[in-house]
């Protein structure tokens, strides 16, 4: 049985007094699934991601994450939910004066892990993203691809239930894009729900089993209703008729 990790119920978002950038978003995302968020520039992808990683509140509608309705949750409640989400920003948002090691260790430190419990997992994570020998390097001395991998390592180090990546392959070559996709699918294989915003059709094609969330002009394109009413169990090719 697959649970719902994200549920949007007629969610709308506007910045200040401007027009709505997202309107009437109605969908559910399953735990442990892999999603691509697509759409033309200006469709509202980044705004939707901001709602998902709790950097914005919807201006209307109900948004439920991890089974909790968070549209009107008190501000003090947010940190505990944010710790369950890993985010890979398009511009990486690494802390420039910290080493790669300290950047990756940050989520563990914020969660209150002791130093002796941080060293091993961070070294292991840096090795996993191929940066074991760059642990003490600071972001300005790393290439774009290396920074991207540090950002991914930071996003997944605390084993979040939901990983959100905004154009994670936007600044890297094809080989690095493939490697990053491999890291994300590996995380998904461990049970993490992954949402990747991308324009990269090749990336989508290279990920069988991933589902698409398409936005156009701030609205969800879901002609079949698959996102509004996703199957509660994964399909089985040779199972009995339901």
């Amino acid at each position, binding site marked *: 049985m697959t649970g719902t990790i994200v549920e949007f119920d007629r969610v709308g978002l506007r910045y200040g007094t401007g027009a709505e950038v997202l309107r009437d978003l109605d969908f559910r995302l399953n735990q442990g699934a892999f999603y691509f968020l697509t759409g033309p520039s200006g469709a509202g992808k980044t705004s939707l991601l901001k709602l998902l990683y709790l*950097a*914005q509140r919807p201006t209307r509608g109900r948004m439920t994450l991890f089974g909790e309705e968070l549209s009107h949750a008190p501000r003090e409640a*947010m940190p*505990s939910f*944010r710790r369950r989400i890993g*985010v890979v920003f398009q511009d990486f*948002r690494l*802390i420039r004066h910290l080493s790669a090691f300290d950047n990756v260790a940050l989520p563990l430190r*914020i969660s209150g892990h002791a130093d002796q419990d941080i060293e091993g997992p961070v070294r292991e994570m840096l090795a996993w993203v191929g940066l074991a020998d760059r642990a003490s390097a600071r972001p300005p001395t790393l290439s774009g691809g290396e920074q991207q991998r540090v950002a991914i390592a930071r996003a997944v180090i605390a084993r979040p239930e939901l990983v959100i990546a905004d154009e994670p392959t936007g600044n890297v070559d094809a080989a690095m894009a493939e490697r990053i996709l491999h890291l994300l699918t590996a995380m998904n294989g461990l049970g993490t729900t992954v949402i990747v915003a991308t324009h990269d059709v090749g990336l989508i094609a290279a990920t069988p089993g991933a589902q698409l969330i398409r936005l156009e002009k701030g609205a969800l394109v879901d002609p079949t209703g698959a996102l509004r009413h996703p199957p509660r169990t994964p399909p089985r090719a040779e199972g009995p008729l339901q």
Partner: protein
Amino acid sequence: MNPLFVTDAERRLIPPSGVRGPVPVLIAIMTFVMVVVGAAGLALANTSAVVKSGVEHRYSIQISDGAAKAPAAVAAARAQPGISRVAQVPPEELRRTLERWLGPAGQEADLPLPAIVDVDLKPGSDPAAIGRSIERAVPGARFIAHRTSLEPLLKALRGLTLLAVGLVLLIALASAAAVVLAARGALDTHRGTIEVMHGIGATDEQVARLFVRQIAIDALLGGIAGAAAAGIIIALILGGANTATMLAGTPPIGWNDVLWLVLLPIAIALLATQVGRGALMRALRERL
């Protein structure tokens, strides 16, 4: 966890230069002014207390129609159990006093002189009852408290002391305002780091801790520097000027007062830390 204790990793998140800026210098100047003004206020309060205690129990019996009644006044005063000392002011001293106002005419023999008898009351005695008794025994005599004539001076000293207290509070307020501005400036400087931390799930308390310790250190360093400079100036002034000591009969600043002055920079550091923390938390709450 104590907000003043941060780990090495937390310290690396916000480099010290990012918060420091002009805060220690500002705090040093504020503390310098505060300690000097505080010392002046304490000196005024002490001088006022010395003057007040010197005249508190001192009264005069004044008989305006001549010296003939002086012995009777002295006798009446000595008969009062509440009086500890009786001394008639010698006529020559009265003439010398008058000479300052009247010139050589003050020494003329036919100038009528009042008789004045100084008396000191024992603590706890009733000046009104003693005065009534003497005025009954010596018709025409007036029983006058010295304090009455010094009241304008004492009032001025009290006013100046209050002014010093007000100035100390005002400077503390200005220091607090400087710390608030510095704290907000530090948040703006490190906006990127803070956004990343919040995004990862850091609480406001965790973010504020990174800055509070630096604010406390800056305020304490500035406070100590300012207080040390003020201490040197005060020591130089007190060492070179014995006039105040001569006027008051005692040093204008005692060791108890020095203790208060030493506490001022510590109080400033505590105030800065608390105000800084409050400003940080308020500023952080403005974000989601």
